[in-house]
């Protein structure tokens, strides 16, 4: 049984113009010790999905799901109180923005310890010891002194590591990391990623890692789900996805990034023309068809989820057909 099992998850947000379907029926599952990466363009619903899992959706958001189970517990019917027993203890989250995710008014020690004191009922001393241990594990020197510092006294990289330590305080079974490195520069990013990978292997924690940096995905993920306009349009083990992307959007993404050694410097890059459809109201048919080089009239029908090789699915009418030649680069549109 997977640790987390999601079937037909939907998140709707009422907005001025109608209802915004931020997440439009997605399925996925995560096993213990597994690292699942969620990728996709900005605004495709990645953060909404993770917040839905944590039960931290915005006030007005509405969530429905055929199944939303964490270790056999049905999350859709869980009371807020029981839910808060789970949060932080068995599933925890690392947020996108390290600069603002810590409360400026309290010391790191206070913020690190309060969760474990609440969930495990340990003493302040014990909690501090665990915090120090974890801070050292995430590579922060002089951890003991850090406990008395305030967030603003730390650099972004340090804060992000504190967030990671905080997520680990109760040894959760699942960590959801929402773009934890986009705000950081490459050297710090590399440090943090390594750390996450190590900790995960050590504790057997399952991780959902959200990013739109395909370089990062390639290096750390066990499996990848690609999202587009609120749907998972492709899902595969990492090597398979890179070797043999099944959805034109995935192919488009991969070809957009300049790959040193492959893309000649100064040459034109591939780009996906057009813009993401509005998620307000219903989207009929394939959401990608207006940008898709291979679009056909059939695409006006909703594409089925087609299975490719082992554990590799793509939501495209033509996923199982041979990959057509890449389209000519576009000129300025």
């Amino acid at each position, binding site marked *: 049984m997977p640790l987390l099992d999601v079937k037909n998850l939907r998140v709707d947000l009422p907005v001025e113009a109608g209802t915004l379907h931020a997440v439009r029926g997605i399925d996925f599952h995560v096993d213990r010790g597994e690292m699942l990466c969620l990728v996709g*363009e*900005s605004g495709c619903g990645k953060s909404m999905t993770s917040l839905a899992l944590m039960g931290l959706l915005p006030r007005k958001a509405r969530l429905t799901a055929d199944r939303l189970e964490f270790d056999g517990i049905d999350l859709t019917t869980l009371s807020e109180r029981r839910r808060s027993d789970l949060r932080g203890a068995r599933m925890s989250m690392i947020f996108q923005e390290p600069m603002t995710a810590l409360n400026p008014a309290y010391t790191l020690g206070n913020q690190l310890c309060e969760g474990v004191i609440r969930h495990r009922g340990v003493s302040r001393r014990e909690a501090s010891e665990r915090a120090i241990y974890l801070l050292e594990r995430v*590579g*922060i*020197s002089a951890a003991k002194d850090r406990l008395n510092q305030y967030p603003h006294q730390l*650099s*972004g*990289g*340090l804060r992000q*590591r504190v967030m990671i330590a905080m997520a680990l305080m109760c040894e959760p079974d699942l960590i959801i990391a929402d773009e934890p490195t986009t705000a*950081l*520069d*490459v*050297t710090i*990013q*590399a*440090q943090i*990623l*390594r750390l996450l*990978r190590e900790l995960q292997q050590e504790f057997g924690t399952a991780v959902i890692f959200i990013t*739109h*940096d*395909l*370089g*990062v*995905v*390639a*290096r*750390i*993920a066990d499996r990848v789900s690609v999202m587009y306009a609120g749907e998972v349009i492709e899902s595969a083990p*990492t*090597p398979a*996805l*890179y*070797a043999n992307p099944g959805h034109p959007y995935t192919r*488009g*993404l*991969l070809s*957009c*990034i*300049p*790959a*040193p050694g492959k*893309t000649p*410097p*100064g*040459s*034109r*890059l*591939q*780009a*996906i*023309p057009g*813009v*993401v459809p509005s998620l307000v109201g219903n989207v009929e048919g394939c959401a990608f068809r207006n940008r898709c080089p291979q679009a056909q009239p059939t695409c006006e029908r909703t594409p089925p989820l087609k299975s490719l090789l082992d554990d590799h699915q793509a939501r495209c009418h033509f996923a199982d057909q041979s990959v057509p030649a890449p389209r000519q*680069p576009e*000129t*300025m*549109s």
Partner: protein
Amino acid sequence: MSRTPPALELCGLSKSYTLGGGLFKRGRSLGAVSDVSLRIPRGQVMGLVGESGCGKSTLAKMLLGLTTPSEGDVLVDGKPLRGANQKALARHVQPIFQDPYSSLNPRKRISQIVGLPLQVHGIGTARERAARVAETLDVVGLPRRAADQFPGQLSGGQRQRVAIARALIMRPDIVICDEPTSALDVSVQAQILNLLLDLKQAFGLTYLFISHDLAVVEHLVDRVAVMYLGRIVEEGTRAQIFGAPRHPYTQALLASALTPEPGLGVPDIGMGDAMPDPSAPPSGCAFHPRCPRAEAVCRQQRPRLEDIRGDNARVACHFA
């Protein structure tokens, strides 16, 4: 190449900020940029990379005349920028900023935004200006009807195009790009990069291109300068820097870049976590506390940025 003056030349440029000063108190001084010298020849793209907070944006602001340097000079086409007025400068140097959301006034129509430079410089009649705007929107690949919209009604990629159109309408020689794509996702980024390259070819523009994304820098630039704590630590052609980096910081930087190659894992760059405090930089070589190769001399002496090998590449390291 040495005859005609370079499009942009920085001579010993420095900028320090005063921190925490007030009416009654002198603050500490923070050297955001120290003694930076660079030449960007006409028609070339110069990349500028470095850790966040190392002074890249400050440098860009000085080139744009948004802050005055504490020391040193900027020469545009061989003429000093100091003393030149902002309006005159605007005809030569234009920026493209990082954030396509905050760089456009949300309360103005696209046509007003793009036409503003012409209006400020009193170029043409209203009708001529409108024509120029339409033309420029074509150049950056925006539909004409965008002219009547507000920035809030455009996507990030489209907004960044508006910003580019505004920068280009005066036909500047030099465009300063400060992380122009870091807020965009890869597919939009590709569109913008393509556009920048096209424009360079079409108009012979000179770019200073600041970015964190090494893959993008490598794709786009002719030469690269690497900054660390306000100073340039290495400078050379793309091939020199990406092919054979000589400064340990450049090496660490390149090693940290993650290419989309599954299975390679995340490399260990072994650089410690201590981001130095820019208001109290380490003695000697500023990088020594984090440098795997540091020795006593690094603590005492600051290495000079020199063209050691005579291959037109400069590096500031005792062991290069």
